């Protein structure tokens, strides 16, 4: 029996989000729904990265007065995933904005949001 830690729960939630996101992007037909699935996918990746940086029994990586540096170094959660995730959140927002803008443009052209009509494969 594996001991259930917060990290394990994080991995489970991240896996669930990634699977739901990919399934949504694959099987849903509405463009806006696809975009929402995309945000769920990037949320899942963020959660995975943060869970990788978790230290069991650790502290938030902020050096508070009264804490020795060696204790801090031994117990603090990793900070580099936090940097990556912060960037990833920003990138996710900008990508979503671009996707929504393109969806609006395609809606104006075709009058529908159905991906099976707008994005269908075509011969050239």
């Amino acid at each position, binding site marked *: 029996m594996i001991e259930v830690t917060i990290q394990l729960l994080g991995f489970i939630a991240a896996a669930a989000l990634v699977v739901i996101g990919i399934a949504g992007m*694959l099987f849903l037909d509405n463009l806006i729904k696809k975009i929402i699935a995309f945000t769920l996918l990037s949320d899942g990746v963020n959660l995975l990265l943060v869970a990788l940086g978790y230290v069991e029994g650790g502290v938030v990586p902020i050096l508070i007065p009264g804490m020795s540096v060696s204790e801090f170094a031994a117990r603090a959660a990793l900070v580099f995933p936090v940097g990556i995730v912060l960037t990833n959140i920003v990138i996710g927002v900008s990508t979503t904005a671009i996707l929504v803008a393109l969806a609006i443009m395609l809606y104006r052209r075709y009058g529908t949001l159905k*991906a099976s009509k707008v*994005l269908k494969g075509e011969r050239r």
Partner: protein
Amino acid sequence: MVSVETLFDKVKKWISSFVVGRGYTNMMTGYMTGELQSLVFALILASFFRIFSIPLGMILLVAVIAGIFYFAPIITTLEKENSNDLNRVLFWVVIYFAVIIAVTLWGR
């Protein structure tokens, strides 16, 4: 009356069956070349398997030749599978990723 069909007529019919209904026979050269190319490419890819094991590679080569005869105009299948449909590409990417992970982990 029995019509006389030479071998040339048969080959011509077989070739032009690729492009029936397209109304643009100028593409025929392209489709023919593409068909031959993809045939040879499939054989070469099959013979690549000799790197891993030679007997298995020979079996694979025979299987590919049989498959080529079964799926006769490969180029149309290839064209369909190369469609730029989003979901189809997504599907292929997921499969690809699984294969890469499986192969590298197996090779370990």
